[in-house]
C-alpha cells in the first residue's frame, strides 16, 4: 500500500523514542550495584563455607532476588526522577527477553538439588548460569544500548570456557565455588558499570 511508509516511519519513531528512554535508565548504577552485590556474595558465601548443593543454590537464589530488587529500585528511582513511566512497554520487553534464560537457570539449580547431584557439579552449574544469563542479555540487547550485547557474549564465552576447560586450569578448578560465582558475575557487572560510568556522555572524538 502507498501509505505503508507512514506507518513504518511511525514505528521507527516509536522504537527510537523507546530506546532513548531506556538508554538513560540508570544502567551504570544498576551494573555497579549488581557487581558489588556479586562480589560481596562471593566473599560472604566463601566465609560461611556453605558448600553443599542446597545451601549453595539457596544462597545464590537469595542473592539473585536481592540483585533483582536493587535493579528494580534503581530503575524506578531514575524513572521517577525523569518523570517517565517505570513499567513502560520497552521495560516490559527487556524483562520478558531476560525471563526465559533466568527461568531456565533457576530450574537447573532446583533440579540439581532435587535430583541429588554430586558436589562436583557446582562448577558446571555456575558455567550454565553464566551462559544462560549471557543468552538473556543478548536477547535484551535488542532493546537496550549495544554494550549489553557485548556483555552477553562475554558471559556466554566465559561460561563455555568454564564448562569445557575448567579442569585444565588448576587455579579455577581449586577456587572456592562461591568466589568463582561472585568473581565472574560480580566482576563482569562491575567492569561494565565502571566502563559505563567513564564513557557516558563521552567527549567528542579528538
Amino acid at each position: 500500500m502507498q501509505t505503508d511508509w507512514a506507518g513504518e516511519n511511525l514505528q521507527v519513531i516509536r522504537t527510537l523514542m523507546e530506546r532513548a528512554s531506556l538508554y538513560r535508565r540508570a544502567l551504570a548504577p544498576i551494573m555497579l550495584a549488581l557487581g558489588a552485590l556479586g562480589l560481596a556474595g562471593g566473599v560472604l558465601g566463601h566465609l560461611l563455607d556453605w558448600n553443599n548443593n542446597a545451601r549453595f543454590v539457596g544462597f545464590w537464589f537469595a542473592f539473585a532476588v536481592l540483585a533483582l530488587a536493587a535493579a528494580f529500585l534503581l530503575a524506578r528511582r531514575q524513572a521517577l526522577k525523569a518523570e517517565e513511566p517505570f513499567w513502560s512497554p520497552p521495560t516490559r520487553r527487556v524483562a520478558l527477553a531476560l525471563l526465559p534464560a533466568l527461568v531456565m537457570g533457576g530450574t537447573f539449580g532446583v533440579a540439581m538439588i532435587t535430583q541429588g547431584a554430586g558436589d562436583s557439579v557446582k562448577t558446571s552449574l555456575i558455567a550454565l548460569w553464566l551462559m544462560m544469563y549471557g543468552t538473556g542479555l543478548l536477547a535484551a540487547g535488542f532493546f537496550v544500548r549495544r554494550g549489553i550485547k557485548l556483555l552477553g557474549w562475554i558471559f556466554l564465552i566465559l561460561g563455555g570456557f568454564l564448562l569445557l576447560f575448567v579442569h585444565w586450569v588448576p587455579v579455577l578448578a581449586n577456587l572456592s565455588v562461591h568466589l568463582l560465582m561472585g568473581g565472574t558475575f560480580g566482576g563482569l557487572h562491575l567492569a561494565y558499570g565502571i566502563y559505563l560510568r567513564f564513557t557516558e556522555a563521552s567527549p567528542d572524538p579528538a
Partner: protein
Amino acid sequence: MNPETFQQLDKVIHERGRMAIMSLLAASSDHSFTDLRDTLSMTDGNLTTHLKTLQQAGYVAVAKSYRNSRPLTTCALTPEGRKAFSEYVGLLDKIVRQARGKKGFRE
C-alpha cells in the same frame, strides 16, 4: 491518501536520518554527539550535516562545552523543534488513519 496532508509534512524532518535524530532528542532532554552517532550508527560527517540542517531550521540547539579537557557537544530540541516534531508525528498518524482506519499512534 489526501495529497494535501502529504504536502503538509515538514520536509526538514521528513528524511530518515533527521527523523531518527529528532526522535531520539524528543525522548530525552539532550544527547551528546557521540551518543547520537553511536545509537544511530552514523558517521561523524553524516551526523554533522543533518544537525546543521536541523539547526538552520531552528529545530535543534547545539551546545559546546568541555569535559575532562576535551570538547563535548550536546544537542537538544528547541521548543520550535518539539512543536514541529509533534506536528510531523500527528500528520503521519493522520495519514495512517486515513488509509487504514485504525487506531492512532498515541492511542
